[in-house]
């Protein structure tokens, strides 16, 4: 039986009296490749943080591998959009990846050599082994992203959570990136939060829409309703979004009212 990795049941979340998420229910199963979309402020990042145990729901429950999210957060590989704070921190790519080897309750084990080997392998997997000894602030945005993914991989996660991973990558890089994710998907479930509707790859298997409420689409199809949710057009206004594409758009969208 396919036990869910993450079980979110009727979750509500409020912040400062303002309701951010309303009655969200979702199961993340092994082998999933979910794209989570929705407008800014709609609750995507909040939902991520709830899954990681960084926040507690005001109502409902979030369980990871059968236990409350906080207890199992180390089974989820988290790839943030960018690391907040100090840009000129003295740290090498390898040391960033090694951070993934920290484990709760295992403060004082000295397995340095094995850890370093695993970290190096993770970097190799992301084609970043050559940069292992470089300072993290010497790398480009896309290279940094790959280091963060390596860091998440080294935790040997059941689920990879990526927050807006393609923000600092060019279009060509994005295609490579999603191809890489498809490869990783063989071993790991993946959930990608995307603030950009247009960059949903064909490799994605299902789409989750978050805008305070939650809708799950088992197919990888972007519907007119989804676009409407993110870029609402009233009857009389001109649609504020012009969809540009190079060549033929890869997906045909259902008509939405102009």
């Amino acid at each position, binding site marked *: 039986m396919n036990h869910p990795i993450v079980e979110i049941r009727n979750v509500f979340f409020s912040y400062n009296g303002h309701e951010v998420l309303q009655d969200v229910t979702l199961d993340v199963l092994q082998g999933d490749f979910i794209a989570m979309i929705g407008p800014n402020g709609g609750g995507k990042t909040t939902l991520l943080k709830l899954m990681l145990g960084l926040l507690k729901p005001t109502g409902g429950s979030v369980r990871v591998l059968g236990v409350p999210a906080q207890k199992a957060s180390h089974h989820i590989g988290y790839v943030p959009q960018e690391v907040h704070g100090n840009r000129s*921190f003295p740290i090498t790519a390898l*040391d960033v990846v090694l951070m993934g080897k920290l484990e709760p309750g295992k403060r004082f084990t000295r397995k340095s050599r094995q850890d370093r080997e695993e970290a190096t392998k993770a970097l190799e997997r992301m084609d970043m082994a050559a940069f292992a*000894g470089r300072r993290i602030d010497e790398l480009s945005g896309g290279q940094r992203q790959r280091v963060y993914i390596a860091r998440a991989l080294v935790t040997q996660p059941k689920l990879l959570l990526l927050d807006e991973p393609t923000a600092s990558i060019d279009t060509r890089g994005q295609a490579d990136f999603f191809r890489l994710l498809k490869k990783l998907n063989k071993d790991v479930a993946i959930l990608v939060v995307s603030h950009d509707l247009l960059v949903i790859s064909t490799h994605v298997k299902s789409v989750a829409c978050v805008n305070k409420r939650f809708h799950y689409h088992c197919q990888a199809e972007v519907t007119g309703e989804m676009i409407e949710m993110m870029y609402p057009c009233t009857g009389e206004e001109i649609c504020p979004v012009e969809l540009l594409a190079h060549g033929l758009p890869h997906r045909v969208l259902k008509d939405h009212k102009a």
Partner: protein
Amino acid sequence: MDCPTGFSKTIRLEAMIEALQYDFMRHALAAGLLASVICGIMGALVVVNRIVFLSGGIAHAAYGGIGLAFFFGWPYFFGTIGFSLGAAVVMATVSLKAKHRADTIIGVIWAMGMATGVILLDLTPGYNVDLMSYLFGSILTVPASDLWMMLFAAVMIAGLVAFFYKDLLALSYDEEFARIRGVPVRALYFAMICMLAITIVLVIQVVGLILVIALLTIPPFIAEKHTKSLLQMMVGSVVLSAFFTVIGLWLSYAFNLTSGASIILVAGIFFLLFLPLEHVVRRSRS
């Protein structure tokens, strides 16, 4: 000790070596070097976590503790440390819970702490601590007992930081990720702030408030851009600090200047030279 205006290098060097035969000079050097170790390690953490203003707040608020200790007749050590820990915890809590207000609150505590100390000392009958010596320290009148205390502090700090290095590194670089990996970030942050408060109070006693702030910030700032790990940054800060201290003490001895201020000026001059140099290097690289 009137030195002729001819700048003979040998005379200066001989004068320095001659100076080391004096107890006070050796103590001053030892105090400076121990302060370098302590401030180098903690300073790296301060700069990397961007809590320089908070450290300034703790340092100035500590004066309130001194005032309290004198006024109520408490032992100096406990009065000052107790007050500083209290102020530090308040400031740390504010910086966690209400980040946008932290700046202001720290500024308020900074000023009020100092003013409280001054007023309390005004109200204390009898002999009082001189403000100048608190600001600039009395490195030339360091008793041996203070040196032992600083040695103990240096060993404790080095030991604690070494023990919790991986966690401190994770906390400083990526707190969110550290939390996910099970690092007790809140407790560790407060522990770090408390360690900082204690070291500030200890070192201020010896080298003065202004020098402590200078040593906590200038050497780590220079080391930050040129090292590849937090550990290297700490070592680099300690070495730079020690270098500034030795040169500063030498200059203060040779030209009869205030020692604390001399050390700070040496550090400051290197800092200013370093800035445009770094800019040039960066431009040549790109």
